[in-house]
Each structure stands twice: as structure tokens, then as C-alpha cells.
């Protein structure tokens, strides 16, 4: 028996990844509720920020709606990473290694769960945000683009979670990355636009932080209209993170899966 074809392998592992994601409400529920809670609190507490000269919109809710998509990506890092780390710790990866499974199939399949989570998250955040009164100047095509961007970012960050799991083999180590990504999220244009960040060093770091431009891509669709430059930057950064993450994960997989 020569083993399944690559599409079969990817399909089977994708199926497993999706099933596992859907069967772990403890992974899905916080990923939905926590960002929405923060959205509610921040849009209520920082409403008056729209009075600052140069603030791009009258609706802080619309401005803040970009943030849950990035927070969702954080959960993707954790979920994808801890799932794979658990497979390593329990020996399930050894079981897969004894089959004709190709490494590329393993990584691609594992990200299928991240795709599903990304879709559910994006649809939820957007729906709740619009019901709460957020604006979406680009209409239905813009909504679809937002979902596509959110899924791209979720998958990209998921690949970093896979790398962390393969490198460390430990769920705890993956969890300890949470604060690192949290910092990336906070020191960005998360709460205020880049040009309204007054503290010099904060402005400098936020300007160099790719998260600021990912947020900018979402905001361009919500607030400004079709800005191809902002969208290209957003999708481009997501693609770059994905390439880096998958490359690193593939290298780590070769070490982890030392089969001859």
C-alpha cells in the first residue's frame, strides 16, 4: 500500500482539525466573547476620542471594530499551537509519522481548523458590530473582503502557533506566547490612529508594528472606502507572516519528525 494521495491526506487531516475545533467549545467561546466584550467596553469608554482633531470617524465603535479581528488571530495562535502540542505530548504525532503522511499535508491540514475558526469569528464580529451601529462604507463586497482578510490573518497567525508547538513540543510553552502577542496588539494603532499617538517612542514602535497596518486595512473597508494600497498592505503582511510561519514550521517539523 503506497499511502493516500496528497489531497486525501490534507483532506483527512483537515477534517480532523475542523472536528476538533468544533468539539472544543472552550476554544471557540472565549475567542468570540472576549473580543466582543472588549469592543463594547472600549467603544463605550473611548467614545469621546472621536472629538480629537483628526480622528477619522464620528463612530468610535466603527474604529474599534477592527480590533476583534486581530484579537481573534491571537486565539488562533493559541488554539492551533496547543492542539498540535497536545498531539506531540500524547504521541499522536508518532502515530501519524508511521503512516506515509507528508509533512506538507500535516501542516496544511492542521490549519483547516484555523480557517473554520476564522470564518466563525469574522462573521460573528462583523454581524454584532453592524447590529450595534458600526458603519461599513464598502457594503457587501467590503464585508466579504473583511472576512477574507480576517481568515487570511487567522491562518497566518495559526502557522506561528504551529511553529511554536513543533519547536517546543509543549502546550504550556505555546500558552506562554500569549503575552508576547498581546504586547504586539497593544503597542499599535489599536486604540487611536497612528497620527494621534502623542508619546514619541510609542508612536515609533506602533508605526513599525505590522499589526497597525493590518488594523488599517480593516479600517479602510469600514471607514474610508476602497483603498487598494491599504488592502494590499494588509493582505501582503498576512501572506508574509504565513510564509514565514509555514517555513519555520516546516523546518521545525523536520526536526520533530525525525523518521528515516
Amino acid at each position, binding site marked *: 500500500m503506497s499511502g493516500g494521495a496528497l489531497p486525501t491526506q490534507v*483532506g483527512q487531516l483537515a477534517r480532523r482539525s475542523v472536528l476538533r475545533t468544533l468539539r472544543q467549545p472552550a476554544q471557540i467561546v472565549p475567542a468570540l466573547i472576549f473580543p466582543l466584550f472588549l469592543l463594547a467596553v472600549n467603544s463605550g469608554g473611548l467614545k469621546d476620542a472621536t472629538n480629537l482633531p483628526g480622528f477619522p470617524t464620528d463612530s468610535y465603535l466603527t474604529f474599534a471594530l477592527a480590533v476583534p479581528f486581530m484579537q481573534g488571530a491571537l486565539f488562533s495562535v493559541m488554539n492551533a499551537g496547543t492542539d498540535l502540542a497536545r498531539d506531540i505530548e500524547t504521541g499522536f504525532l508518532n502515530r501519524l509519522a508511521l503512516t506515509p503522511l507528508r509533512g506538507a499535508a500535516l501542516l496544511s491540514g492542521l490549519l483547516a481548523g484555523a480557517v473554520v475558526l476564522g470564518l466563525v469569528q469574522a462573521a460573528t464580529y462583523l454581524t454584532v458590530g453592524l447590529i450595534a451601529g458600526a458603519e461599513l462604507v464598502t457594503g457587501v463586497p467590503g464585508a466579504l473582503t473583511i472576512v477574507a482578510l480576517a481568515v487570511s490573518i487567522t491562518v497566518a497567525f495559526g502557522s506561528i502557533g504551529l511553529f511554536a508547538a513543533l519547536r517546543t513540543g509543549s502546550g504550556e510553552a505555546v500558552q506562554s506566547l500569549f503575552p508576547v502577542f498581546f504586547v504586539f496588539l497593544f503597542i499599535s494603532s489599536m486604540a487611536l490612529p497612528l497620527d494621534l499617538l502623542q508619546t514619541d517612542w510609542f508612536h515609533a514602535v506602533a508605526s513599525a508594528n505590522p499589526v497597525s497596518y493590518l488594523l488599517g486595512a480593516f479600517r479602510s473597508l469600514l471607514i474610508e472606502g476602497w483603498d487598494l494600497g491599504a488592502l494590499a498592505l494588509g493582505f501582503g503582511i498576512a501572506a508574509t507572516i504565513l510564509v514565514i510561519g509555514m517555513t519555520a514550521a516546516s523546518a521545525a517539523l523536520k526536526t520533530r519528525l525525525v523518521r528515516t
Partner: protein
Amino acid sequence: MSDDRERAGIEVEGLVREFKNGPRAVDGIDLRVAPGEIYGFLGPNGAGKSTTVLMLTTLLPPTAGTARVAGFDIVREGPSVRGAIGAALQEAALDPLLSGAEHMRLQTALHGVPKAERGERSAELLSRVGLSEAADRRVAGYSGGMKRRLDLALALVHRPRILFLDEPTTGLDIQSRTALWDEVARLASEDGVTVFLTTQYLEEADALAGRVGIIDHGRIVAEGTPAELKAEIGRPTVEAVPRDPADQERVARALQPFGERCGATHRGGASVLLAGGESQLADVVRALDAEGIAIETLQLHAPSLDDVFLAKTGRSLEGAGEAEAEADSEEMEVVGA
């Protein structure tokens, strides 16, 4: 595939595995397992059993030496080896979120079982291991025995010629253990599967294995059929445990004239191989009495695999055999001098 490879078992020469800054976990082992044989690999924790299995199943490259499994070189022909073997490793390695049936579906697909045959093959194997009714339940709800049986079924999906079982019954109750033994024996006798079984349970090796290799500190210290190995020891041993632990040496000196010393026992006594057989027992009692040594326990052992291990290494297998010793020996309490 050539006929030679169809018939090939396992051939190992000088296999070594060294870890960075650590001891040699496997220190140059040679062994041969004939096709269709059940080979028991027996040794205490940390002896090198699992490391050997990981190398033979291509999950760990050896540091030195060679091995051919099913006719394929484990280093140069890894994928071919994996195609010919099944393995149930030390951890059951199951996904608690998937059901038994979903595990089978995944495994059959990954091994390239044609789609039309996957359902039937899965159902057949689940039935064989007694998991048909539990097939749609998530593994998180399975007992330890059920997990081990599912593990075995998964190892068989692609009809491997050689099956590696790494401590398959550790932690199982007697019933589950016996059921697993029956299935392994059937696989070998009816399906002609070659089985490489590692265990730290003497009775498992005794019951299942046609031949046994005993490993300690990474080296094979004895090899043969259980009967041959026991016959090598041949004579019964007598073990005397003094009431006062400080008398151990005195006991050893008193027993010295009766045969080859076997070293201190794990109960703080001394034992010797009785050169003259069981008939010397009365003389042993008189000798101990003459020395005025108060004896807590005096036991006569028929040779067991633990005795083989003891003779070869000077130690008992861990947890080896309070039970086995009680089954095989006559126990006498000798009180006072």
C-alpha cells in the same frame, strides 16, 4: 516485492543509540526475529526496550549499527519499512476528541486503503478487538483496555507483516491483558504476523513469546526460548532472608558450600543455586541452624525468567515477581536457632 522480502523478519547488527551528554540507551545489540515469530523483548524500566523499538520503527535514527525490518534497511529505506510494519507504541497516542470509528477512518485513509474498502476494513478490525459497540463514542470515554485495543486495531489497518508492540498491557487489568494476549497469539498463528513485543512482565513474555531477549543497560544479556533460558539456570535456588538484616553476610557464608552464589536478593537475603538440587534443602536448614542465625523466610525457587535475569545481571527485574515467586516457590518459615 521479492519473495525474500516477503519472508523477511527482523535482523539487527550492532545497533547503538547514544543521546547527547547521556548514556548509551542501546549499546550494540544483535538479534534476529524469524517471520511469523513472536519475539519477547524483556527488561526493566530504562533498559533500552522502547529506544530499540523507536529505531526499528524508523522514528529514531540509530547512532551506529544496522537493522533490516521486513527486508528493508531502517535508515535508507524508511518509508518501505513503515509500509510493512504496524506499531502500538508505549503511549496509546489517541485523540480524545475523535471516536474510535473516526480514528479508523483517518488511519485507513492515510495508509492509502481504497475508499471503497475503508468502511469494511474498519468495521472488521473494530469487531476483532471488541469495539464495535463503542466505535462511535469519543475516545475520551474509553477505558484503558479499550484504548489499547483501539491502538492495536489502528496498527493493523494496512495488514502489516510485522507488528511492534511496546509494553502493550502495562496498566491493564487481568481480563483486558488476557484478551490482548489472545489476539496477539492469533495474529501470529493464523495471520502469520511477526510480532516484536517489549514487556517488563515476566508472565507476558513466558505466555506469548516463542523466543525472549533480555535487555539490561542497553545490551542483550540473554536470548533463547523461555524453556532454554530457564534450563540454563537449571538448578533451583534457595533464598534465605534473615530476621536481622545485619546477618545477611552470615547467611551468605552459611549457604556458600551449597552452590554458586546468586547475590543479595531484593528482600535483603542471600541466595544460591543448589548444586545438588532440592534434596539439599534439609542440609541448608541444618547449616543455618548451626550458625545460630534467625531466619525470617526460606524459599525454594524453581527457575523463572526473573532468575535468569538475576543470574545474568545480579539484580531482579523491577516489580518482577513477588507474585511469580509466590507462584513458583514453597515458602517455609524458620523461627529462631
